[in-house]
């Protein structure tokens, strides 16, 4: 065991310790502060000498708690609702992006067809579009144009599953936000999955073909199981963007479809910041990505390398 690893200079371990401290220090700080009362945060009893309290979390989650915490007289922060909105939007958009994205990636890798080069180039080009650039047109379109006339299309289909309200526009609904997230993430997902699908041996697919499987069967029963690591990586990246995004969600959501980032920003911009509660909400928002990182870091790194190296 020990023979495999080289002996290193002690200074080297000090350097690593410093790096680790620097990278997770701010997160730990937020974690600790989220258990402090505002008085403790401001008075500066530094370090670990304080009485941990879950009051901040109770205050943040007051609309979904089954009991009424005595220190909360008025439940102003509707964190629970926002959390559920975020969850719905992130999970559904991740699922749709993956299904649609891997089908497209498969087509781009395995078939020669008219318009293939155009499709592939377009996918690559739209990857650079910043969300801020989409703000103006998406705001205009989702409020004015994608209303009645898009009822029959995919927007309508998504709406049906959630139960929309007649001729309401896409703006202000979950599906409106999901649609733009799916579109925004597709180029990246297609790009990453292409490099995984290329590695699937063609002979396997041909064998399935010979056994009488149709193209869709080949895809779902042979190709998909083989690119699971790629799918995991793509899923994490898509979820991360959909879960963390603020700008477009803030333009498209209304009172009932607010996501967590919007809630945090709205509470930040007020003059008197309640640090404890804000840190608690921030921590709650950060928990899912942290869990992913701890359990699937290998997939994340594979995905990152695949996404960058394949130019």
């Amino acid at each position: 065991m020990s023979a495999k690893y080289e002996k290193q200079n002690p200074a080297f371990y000090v350097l690593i310790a410093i790096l680790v401290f620097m990278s997770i220090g701010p997160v730990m700080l937020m974690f600790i502060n989220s258990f402090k009362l505002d008085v403790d945060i401001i008075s500066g009893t530094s370090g670990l000498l304080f009485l941990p309290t879950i009051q901040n979390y109770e205050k943040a989650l007051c609309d979904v708690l089954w009991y009424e915490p005595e220190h909360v007289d008025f439940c102003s922060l509707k964190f629970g609702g926002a959390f559920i909105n975020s969850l719905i939007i992130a999970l559904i958009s991740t699922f749709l992006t993956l299904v649609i994205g891997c089908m497209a990636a498969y087509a781009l890798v395995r078939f020669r067809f008219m318009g293939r080069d155009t499709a592939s180039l377009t996918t690559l080009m739209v990857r650079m579009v910043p969300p801020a650039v989409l703000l103006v047109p998406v705001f205009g379109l989702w409020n004015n144009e994608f209303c009645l006339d898009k009822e029959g299309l995919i927007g309508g289909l998504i709406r049906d599953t959630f139960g929309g309200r007649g001729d309401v526009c896409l703006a202000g609904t979950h599906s409106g936000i999901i649609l733009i997230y799916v579109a925004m993430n597709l180029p990246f997902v297609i790009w990453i999955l292409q490099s995984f699908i290329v590695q699937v041996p063609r002979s396997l697919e041909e064998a399935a073909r010979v056994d009488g499987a149709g193209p869709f069967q080949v895809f779902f029963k042979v190709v998909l199981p083989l690119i699971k690591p790629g799918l995991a990586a793509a899923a994490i990246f898509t979820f991360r963007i959909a879960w963390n995004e603020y700008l477009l969600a803030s333009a498209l959501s209304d009172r009932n479809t607010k996501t967590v980032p919007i809630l945090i920003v709205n509470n930040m911009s007020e003059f008197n910041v309640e640090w404890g509660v804000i840190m608690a909400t921030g921590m709650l928002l950060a928990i899912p990505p942290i869990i992913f990182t701890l359990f699937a870091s290998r997939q994340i790194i594979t995905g990152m390398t695949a996404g960058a190296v394949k130019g």
Partner: protein
Amino acid sequence: MSRALANRLTPYMFMAPAAVIMAMALLYPLMYMIWGSFRDWNPSQTIGEAEFVGLNNYITLWNDPNFHESLGVTLRFAFFVVGFEMLIGVGLALLLDRNIRGMSVLRTLFILPMMIAPVVVGLMWRYMYHPTVGTFNRFLDDLGLPKVDWLGQHALGSIIIADIWQWTPFIFILSLAALQSLPRSALEAARIDGATAWQQIIYVKLPLMMPVLIVTCLLRLIDAFKVLEVILVMTEGGPGLSTEILALRISRTATEFRELGVAAAMSNYLLLLLLAFTVAMFAVTSLQEKRAARIRAAVEEDE
């Protein structure tokens, strides 16, 4: 006959959902934006009601000192952020490219900052930079040093530091992956020829890593223009315009000043800028592929 037709239709069936969604929610909006940038358009109007003003929005922006300021801030931010991140990231990768125990744990901890929401990152750093209760000033105070006005006078520097914290690991991990996939034979040869550690880095490792480094750098550069939430939470673009990057200015023009036409024109300027970087990236990668192909051909001829 029908079987052949079905076969020919298969790729289109696989492509169709993605094509529909991207056309509807990316390409059409982009066209819509270009169309809208020629109009005097405010949020209460539909685009058809807005008056056509030709290139006016573009000309106004071209002469607008605030826009110049914003563009300057954006370019400075992107330049410093990418520069420092490349230096630190590649440096750390060269330093930590050793066979040590716990490397995977280390990498896991390093990617944590990237995965956390930009809003939360902004929140953490805003707390740490806080003039009185913030971690940094308290630390300086304890040491008896004067306090620093982090998000006031040095706002741009402070947001650059926060971004470096968040994204250096990205470059570190990609360059580490590149380093570990270098051909062992080249390194071995250099060592046998008696190259010092520095010489190995400068003459062997860095040149071999170059293709990956260039792509990483360009990817990071394009991403640096997308940064918005961290800055929004930390400074809201202030004080003054000192941290108002273009993405933030677009969103403010659209929501606060209610000038969608101008915001659209600004978005188009930003897109043109990014287009230039993307084209550069394509050029570099295709050049590399050609060179690799030529080398491969040369090797085959030799054999």
